[in-house]
C-alpha cells in the first residue's frame, strides 16, 4: 500500500485552523527530532532514512552480479571487472523453535579478484511454522553472521520472503545482524517486487541495498510488470538494483541500476553472454 494523501477541506476559520495545524506540526517534529536523537522512536528511522540509502561500501561492486545458486557453478569465464557474483552460501529453515542450517553442498568457484557476495536464504517450514521467538532470532542471526566471516567475500545478502506476520522478526534479525557485522561489511537484501510497489515496510531497514526480484513472482507477476512499464518502484530503496532471470521476460529496465541475474541452470559463458546482450538491447526507460 502506498502513501495516503490526507485531504483537509477548507474550514470556515481557515487561517486560525492553519495556524493551529502549523503549531501542532512543529511540536510533533520537535518531539520526533528529540526522540530521534535518542534513537528511541521508529519515527526517527523514517526521519533520518526517508531517502534511499546506498552506502559507499557497495558503490564499487560491479554493475552486473550473477546469482550462483545451489548447483555446481564454476565461473572462471567471467570478467571480474564488470561481473560480480552472489553465491548461495547457506539456507536456513525456520521450523517451530528451531533453525535448521543447510550449508551449500554444491561446489562454487570464481576467479581471483571476483567481487563476491555471500547469500543466506531463509525459508519457513510450511509444516511446522516458525515461532519467531527471541531465541530463534538469535540463532538465525548467528547463522547468518557466521557466513559474514567467510574469507574472500566483500558483502553479505539475505534472501527472505517474509510474510506480513514475519516482518517484525525479520526487521529484528537485520538490526541485530547489522550490529554483529563489521561496519565495513555491506548488507544487501532481496525484496519481493510487491514490497517495493504496494508497500513501504522497507523504510528504515539497516541495509545498504535492496534488490527487488522481478521474476518468479507467482500471483503478482502481471500486476508488477504492468506497473513497472508505467512507473518506477514507489519505495525509494528499491530504485538502485534489480533482480531478473534468464528464463522470464525482461521487465522495464531503468539505467544506472545494478542488475542481479538468475539462471535456472549452471551458468555458462554462452548463456551469460547472450543474456547480457539481450539486456543491452532491451529498451530502457529514460
Amino acid at each position, binding site marked *: 500500500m502506498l502513501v495516503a494523501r490526507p485531504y483537509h477541506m477548507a474550514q470556515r476559520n481557515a487561517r486560525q485552523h492553519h495556524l493551529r495545524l502549523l503549531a501542532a506540526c512543529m511540536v510533533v517534529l520537535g518531539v520526533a527530532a528529540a526522540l530521534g536523537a535518542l534513537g528511541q522512536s521508529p519515527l526517527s528511522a523514517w526521519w533520518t532514512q526517508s531517502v534511499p540509502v546506498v552506502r559507499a561500501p557497495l558503490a564499487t561492486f560491479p554493475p552486473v552480479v550473477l546469482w550462483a545458486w545451489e548447483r555446481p557453478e564454476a565461473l572462471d569465464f567471467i570478467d571480474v571487472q564488470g561481473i560480480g557474483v552472489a553465491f548461495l552460501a547457506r539456507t536456513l529453515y525456520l521450523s517451530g523453535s528451531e533453525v535448521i542450517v543447510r550449508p551449500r553442498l554444491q561446489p562454487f568457484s570464481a576467479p581471483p579478484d571476483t567481487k563476491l557476495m555471500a547469500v543466506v536464504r531463509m525459508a519457513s517450514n510450511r509444516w511446522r511454522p516458525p515461532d519467531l521467538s527471541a531465541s530463534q532470532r538469535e540463532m538465525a542471526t548467528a547463522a547468518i553472521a557466521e557466513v559474514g566471516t567467510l574469507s574472500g567475500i566483500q558483502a553479505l545478502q539475505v534472501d527472505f520472503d517474509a510474510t506480513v506476520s514475519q516482518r517484525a522478526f525479520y526487521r529484528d534479525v537485520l538490526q541485530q545482524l547489522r550490529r554483529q557485522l563489521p561496519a565495513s561489511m555491506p548488507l544487501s537484501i*532481496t525484496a519481493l517486487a510487491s514490497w517495493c510497489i504496494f508497500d513501504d515496510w522497507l523504510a528504515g531497514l539497516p541495509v545498504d541495498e535492496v534488490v527487488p526480484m522481478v521474476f518468479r513472482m507467482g500471483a503478482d507477476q502481471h500486476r508488477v510488470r504492468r506497473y513497472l512499464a508505467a512507473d518506477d518502484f514507489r519505495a525509494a530503496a528499491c530504485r538502485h538494483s534489480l533482480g531478473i532471470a534468464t528464463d522470464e521476460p525482461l521487465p522495464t529496465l531503468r539505467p544506472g541500476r545494478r542488475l542481479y541475474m538468475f539462471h535456472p541452470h549452471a551458468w555458462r559463458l554462452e548463456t551469460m553472454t547472450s543474456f547480457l546482450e539481450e539486456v543491452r538491447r532491451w529498451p530502457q526507460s529514460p
Partner: protein
Amino acid sequence: MATIPLKWMLAIGMVAGLLGSRPVCSCGPFFEQAIFTYTLHPDVPLTSYAQGQLGILQPTYAQSYLYVAYRYLIGMGFDQEEKEALLALWDERLNPQADLWNPNASAAVKTWSDVRAQITAAGPPPPINVFKALEARNGVFYYHEYVNCPADAFQTAANTLTERIRQFGADSGDVQEWVRAQDQVFSNCSGARAIPAPAAPQSPEILQKDRAYQIAAAHFYAGDLAVAERLFRDIADDPASHWRPLAPYLVARALLRQGSLVPRDDDVDTAKLTAAKQTLNAILDDRNLQIIHPTTRRLLAVVRARLEPAERVHELAQSLLTPNNGPTLKQDLWDYTLLLDRGADERNGADADAARRDEMTDWILTFQDTSPGGLEHALQRWTATSALPWLVASLAKVGVGHPRHHDLLAAAEKVPQEAPGYASVTFHRLRLLAASGRRDEARQQSDSLLSQGVPTFPPSGRNLLLALRTKLARTLYEFMTYAPRLPVAITYNIDGREIPENIETSERLQLIARDRPLFDVDAARVINRRLPLDTLRELVHRTVLPTHLRRELAMAILTRSLILKEDDTTRDLVPVVKTLIPELGPSLDEYRATINREARVFTGIFMILRFPGLKPYVQENVGRLTPFDQIDNYRDNWWCALEPATLGTSREGDQLSAPLEILYRSAQDHAFEFLSAAQAHAAQQELQRLASLGPAPNYFSQQVMAWAQRASSDPRVPEALHLAVRATRFGCTDTDTGTFSKAAFDLLHQRYPKSPWAQKTKYWYK
C-alpha cells in the same frame, strides 16, 4: 569411524542435486493452482505407473519415470520387489519435506549422544556439526560444504563405547579417556583440528588399538588424508588390531577423498581414484574380508562414478535391465539418473555420443530432446529397429509437416490396445489425424475412448484427450461439452515438483477440490477472445456446462455487456443471470426497471462497483477464490487494462502447459470449425473496445463522475464515488489512476461533504 561412510555423502549430494535442479523459490506469493496434466511425473499415486499404466508419456518427465516406461515398452516389466523399490525411490524424491533433513539431528548422532551421556565424568558433550567447508585455495575462490562425518561414524562410535562400558564399566578412567578422545575426533567434523594423543602404554591393549584407530580417524576428518591413509594402512598390517578388517576399506576412503574432495572437476586426482579402485577390488578378492564386501561394492560404485562415469552409466543401464533385481534397483536407478543429470550439464559432442552407447540411455535422452535433432534421431532408430519405444518417441515429436508422418501413422494404427505404449501412441495418432484433415476419424475415435473410460488413459491423459476433442468441436455446444476438465491435482507448487496438497489442511483448498471441472487455458482463450457477445449470450442460456462454470460464464458475459453498454444483451441476460447469481438479483431488477438508458448504464456500473469479483472474462484454472462480493487482498479485483492478445490472463499467466503446447504448435492449430469469420471479426471489435476502457478503477471513476455531473441528485452518487475511490486503492492501476482517484475524491467532498460516504473516504490514492 565409518562402515558405510559415503552413503550419507551420496544422499546429501543427491538431495542437493535435486535442490539445485529445481528453480529457486525466491518469490511469490503462491496460490492454489489446478494441474490438469502432470508435466514432471505421472499421475499420483505412482503405484499405477509402476504397474505399467503409462498413460501419455511426457518428454518433461524425470528420467526415472522414462526408465520405467522403457522397460514396459520393450516388454520387460518389473517384479513386486522391483516395483516397491521404484516406489521407495519416488517417495524420497517427491517428499516435500526433503529440504528439511537435518543430519546434525539424525538418529545416529542422537544414539552416540545417548550412549556418551552414560559417561558423566567426561563432562557435557560438545556440539556436533557434521558439515565441513572446502574453501578457497590458490587464489581462486572456492566454497562448498560436505558431510565430513557421516551417520555410521556416530553409530560405530556408539557401538564401540557400549562395548567398552560393558567391558570396563562406565566409571572406568580408561573409558572416560576413550570418550574424550572420541570427542576430539568428532570436533574435527566441522573444521577444528584436534588429534588425540596416543593411549597410555599401560592401558589395556584393546584400548590402545582403539586409540590408534581414533587417531587415524581424527586425521581423516581433519583433512590430513595422506596421514590418515598411512595410519589406516598401519592398522591393516597390524594382526593384533581388531580394526584390521575394516582398515583397508578406510584406506580406500582416504584415497577417494584425496582424489575427489577437490575444488573443481579439473583438479580430480585420477591416480588416487585409481588407487582407491585397486584397493577396493583387492578387498573384494579377499574372502577373509567378506564381512565388508557389501560396503566395499558400494564404495567402489562411487569411485567408478567419478573415475569412469560413462562406463558406469552403461553398467547401470545394463543392471537396470536385468530382471528380478529388486535388492539393487533403487540404488542403481538413483545413481543412474544422478549420473545422467550430472552429465547433462557437461555433455558436449563427444560425450553426447558416449552417453547414447546403450539403447535405453539413448532412448531416454532422445525422448527428452525437444530439438529437431531429437526427432530425426528417433526416426532413424525407429527405421532401423521398428521397436515400440522408438515409435513412441517419434510420434511424440512429429508434426504433419514431416514427410515420415504417414509411415508413423500407419505403424501406430497397428499397436493393439493392450500394448504398454498404447495411450501415447493413440493420442499422437489422433493428434496427427486431426492435424492432417482426418478430423471425423479423430473425433469418432476420441469419443470412443472417452466414453469407454479406457483404463489406459489415467486422468492426466484423459484431460489431454479432452483438449484434443475440444479442438475438434464442430459446434459451440460440442466445444462446451469437452472444455471443462477435472484437475488431477490442486497444489501451491512452491517448489515446482507438482506435489498435490492435502485438501484437508485448508478451507480454501476444499473450496476448489470438490471434484468440479474447471477451464484450462486453451478453453478460456477461446471463450474470452474468440467469441462475440452474441455467441456468449447464447452460451449462458445453455445447460451444457456445470452450474459453477455457467455461473462464472454468466458473471463474465454480464460484466462485458454492461461495460460495453450492450443494453439489449444485458436485458436479455437478466433472467438467467438472476437464477445463476441470485446475489445480483436486486441490482438486476433495478437495472431492468430503470427506464432511462443512461441511468440504466449507471445502475450496471454501480452494481459492478459493489462486486469486486466481476470481470469481463472467465478465469481459467481455479480463478478467484475470494467471494465475489469481497475485496481480494492480493488486488485481484475487477480487471486490469485489457489487451486483446492476452485477454483473460490469469494469476499464473496466459501460458499453455507443456503437454498442451503440442496441440497448438502452428497457426492452423488455433482454428476452430465452429467459429465463422464474422464471429471472429465481431469478437475482435469487442476486444478492441474493451481494451480502450483501460483498467477498471479508471473506467469506474470516469463513468461515475460523468453520471454525477448529469444526475447529481441521484442518491447513489456519493456511494458510487466512494466505491470508485476504493477501487483505485484495491484494483489494477496505471499512471493515470491517481488523477482519477483525486478527481472522484474531490467531487465527493466538494459536492457531498456531509454525506456519510465522504466521511468514510479519507484518502485518495496515487
